[in-house]
């Protein structure tokens, strides 16, 4: 259960987040979308305890964001935008480190590592340094690190990026199972088609403000604005309408092509 109340973040004169209020219930996969610079990463960084908000509060799994930040970190799984992997470690060493820091017991940890490496097809690469991994492999290790502790809340920044279709399917299977067992999963993504397909609920953030929120199941029946009264055909359309300020250039300007 993730509860956010009027979370704001101010960088000198730049208001990155403006009184964001949101909640992700248990048994739910929540898609968090928005254009670049809208505040998605800032939100995630605040919720995962990397930066402090200027005002507002949040509760994650019942723990207060600021007072119990170490407790929160013990119980959540994170894939940050930058992946935060230790390049100087091998895949296996990294997972071992993560498990130990979460206080997992030795034999349990070893078993889970073995299973995860097999599931993600990383067994042959487990003793290679992470810096030799391809982007897709790094994503897989990051994903494995995030779920190794069976956390009840997950914060995943573009989890499927660079991941091939087969692995994508597997990751989605895992997240669905975790959700069914009560986890709250917060995902950011730019692939709106995917968000519409996979998430239960979606919110659009623009310029630090929450501008749209809805369950994904009924999304194609939302009515368009008064001008043509047609319903939207996809999340992508809704997104474009809300976020686009109409100043975008046309490809016709690229006249030399």
């Amino acid at each position, binding site marked *: 259960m993730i509860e956010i109340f009027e979370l704001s973040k101010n960088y000198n004169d730049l208001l990155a987040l403006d009184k964001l209020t949101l909640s992700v219930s248990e048994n739910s996969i929540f898609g968090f979308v928005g254009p670049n610079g809208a505040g998605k990463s800032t939100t995630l960084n605040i919720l995962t305890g990397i930066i402090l908000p200027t005002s507002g509060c949040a509760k994650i799994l019942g723990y207060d964001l600021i007072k119990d930040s170490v407790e929160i970190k013990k119980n959540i799984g994170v894939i940050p935008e930058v992946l935060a992997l230790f390049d100087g470690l091998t895949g296996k060493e990294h997972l071992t480190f993560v498990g130990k820091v979460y206080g997992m017991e030795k034999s349990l940890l070893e078993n889970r590592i073995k299973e995860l490496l097999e599931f993600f097809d990383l067994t042959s690469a487990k003793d290679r340094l992470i810096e030799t991994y391809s982007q897709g*492999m790094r994503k897989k290790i990051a994903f494995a690190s995030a779920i190794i502790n069976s956390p009840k809340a997950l914060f995943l920044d573009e989890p499927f990026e660079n991941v091939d279709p087969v692995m994508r399917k*597997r990751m989605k299977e895992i997240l669905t199972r975790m959700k069914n067992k009560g986890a709250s999963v917060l995902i950011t993504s730019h692939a709106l088609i995917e968000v519409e397909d996979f998430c239960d609920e979606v919110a659009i953030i623009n310029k630090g403000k929450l501008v749209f929120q809805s369950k994904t199941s009924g999304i194609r029946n939302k009515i368009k604005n008064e001008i043509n009264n047609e319903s939207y055909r996809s999340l992508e359309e809704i997104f474009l309408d809300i976020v686009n300020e109409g100043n975008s250039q046309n490809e016709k300007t690229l006249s030399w*092509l």
Partner: protein
Amino acid sequence: MQLNILDIELLEVSFGELKALDNLNLQIPQGCIFGLIGPNGAGKTTTINCITDILDYDLGKIKIFGKDLSTEGLAIKKKMGALYENTEDLFQYLTGEEYLQFTGEIYGLDKNTIIERSNTLLDYFELDSYRFMLIDEYSKGMRKKIALASILLHNPDFIILDEPFDGLDALTVVKLKNLLKKLKEKEKTVLITSHILSYIEDLTDEVAVINKGKIVFQSKISELRSKVKNAVTNETYKSLEEIFIDLTNTKGENKIENLNWI
């Protein structure tokens, strides 16, 4: 007779004992938007690196525009452009504008053309307010955009886009889709890879699947759903994803049931 823009024959590349490309054959006809898909480690990046001449191949032949890459490289490169998955080819400590200028000059464009086209491109990709910012400080999406801008400057006839959609925001995705349509109208050839198969199905004319260093499947998109499945079920495929999983998923043991604690 239609000219093949890209003609790869029996390409072989090995990294030590690992054979990355194994007698790869690939032909891309002119004017086609061609999708190349495959699992991680299948050889996509290796193939693209060979085509763009940043990786040497052990055996085989690569012909672009009918010319041999190893002997007529300069002429070929003048009309080609490539977007790499990690945008690692950007000069970190140049500003966006300077990088475009660098690219334009290397392609032999004259000064005024470079300035004019750079301005248009920076505007188009909404990077105008970041033109004086070092590329090092760009976000991932911005890097993709400046890389895209840099390959359009010299009006190439053959464009390679390696995972162009990853990291792009939804608005730019739409822009890119429209751009592809325009390139198709002008009979340019595009080689595009993506892990989001719905994009590939939507945008490409023909698609090939690469796995373990070989092309294991190739078909026009229009004929995709009429291809027959294996002899066992004789059913046709319902989507590109199905074909993909069937062809590349070799391990049956990676069942989610193995992770019983999830």
